Structures are given as C-alpha cells and as structure tokens.
C-alpha cells in the first residue's frame, strides 16, 4: 500500500514537472503561431498605415516584456487596432509560446 502511494506521488510529481516545463513556453509551438505576425513584423522597415510609424522589431526581444505586451493588448490596457484584434485570439499558453520563440534568438 505504501509502495502504491509512493508510486502515485512519483507520478503526480512527474506530471507536475511536465506542466511547469510547459508553463515556460514552447518555442516550437510558438514558431507555428508567428506566421500571422510576419505580415507586418517580418517586413524590414514596414510602417503602420495609421498612425504612421515603423512596426517594432520583435525577434530577440525579452520574453517577459513580450508576454506583458500581448496581455496588455488582450486586456485592452495597451491600445493598437491591429494588435488588439490579434491578441484577443491568443490564449495565455499561445502568448507564452510566442514569447518563448521570439526571445530565443537573443540568448
């Protein structure tokens, strides 16, 4: 019985370990999500139509900043017509994965 309990604990621990690894963001999953972003963020020097300024470089940007930025757009705290629309379609996990992928280039 004790063995069975120990085994159960080990399984639970392993499961927990897996989910916390996932919580760090999955680069490979992130790479699949950024195709949409490339329409603007993949064109060097590309400028927003309105208001007019260059779309920022996001590859190599810091991970937590990217997470905060996307959550800001999603919650409406940070405003930009295109980015608000994009971010509302993303889940929290999507946002983590995108940030993991983009930030991986500077490390």
């Amino acid at each position, binding site marked *: 019985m004790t063995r069975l309990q120990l085994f159960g604990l080990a399984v639970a621990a392993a499961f927990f370990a897996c989910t916390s690894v996932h919580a760090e963001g999955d680069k490979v999953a992130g790479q699949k999500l950024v195709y949409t972003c490339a329409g603007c963020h*993949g064109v060097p020097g590309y400028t927003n139509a309105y208001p007019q300024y260059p779309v920022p470089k996001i590859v190599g940007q810091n991970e937590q900043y990217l997470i905060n930025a996307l959550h800001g757009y999603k919650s409406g705290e940070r405003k930009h017509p295109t980015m608000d629309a994009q971010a509302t379609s993303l889940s929290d996990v999507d946002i983590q994965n995108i940030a993991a992928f983009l930030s991986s*280039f500077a490390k």
Partner: protein
Amino acid sequence: MKHVATLISFGAALAFASTTLLANGSIENGKQKATTCFACHGVDGNSVDPQYPRLAGQYNKYLQVVLHEYKDGQRSNPIMKGMASTLSAQDIEDIATYFSSLPTKLDTLKGHLQGDK
C-alpha cells in the same frame, strides 16, 4: 519699409529652417540624457531583466512614438510615465536616436519562419 518686411520674412524663413534642422536627434546628447534609462534598459540598451524591453537597434521613430505615448498617457506604465513626463520633444528625439544607433540583438521575423531561407 518694404526692405524691413523682406528682411523679417527672410529671418522667419531662416528660423524655421534651423528648427527643422534641430529636429534631428543627436546621438551624443541622447547618450547624456539616457543615463536614467540605463538602470533598467542596460548601458548597451540590452536589458538583462526580461521584463524590460531591449531598446538597442529598435527603430528610432518607433521609440519616439512610444515615449510620446507614455508622456501623454496614451500608453500606461507607472515607471515609464514618470520618466517620459520630464522629457521634451527634443529629449525624446535624442534618446531615441541614441538607443536606435546601438548594436542590436533585435530583428524582424524575416528569415526566422519555418521554410524561410
């Protein structure tokens, strides 16, 4: 009298021309004015703490827009609001010009997608 008017309009034209020249940011002045930024954004513009964005090599105009957004409250961040509120339009141009001139770790998505060369 007509001469005076011509002279004044010449003067006005010159003054206007020189302000547009001044409107270009200066890397040197920007470096001086950016000392406060270094604590979070790094001396080289590459923040170590991942919650702060890297500024080195970001588009000059984008950095200016963002600083103006913090200044006028359009974009809200308690730390940046305090920082940007003390900056003049010229300060913003200088600081943005300085950070955008630094060696960068940033890039666009071009070449980073699966199947891209």
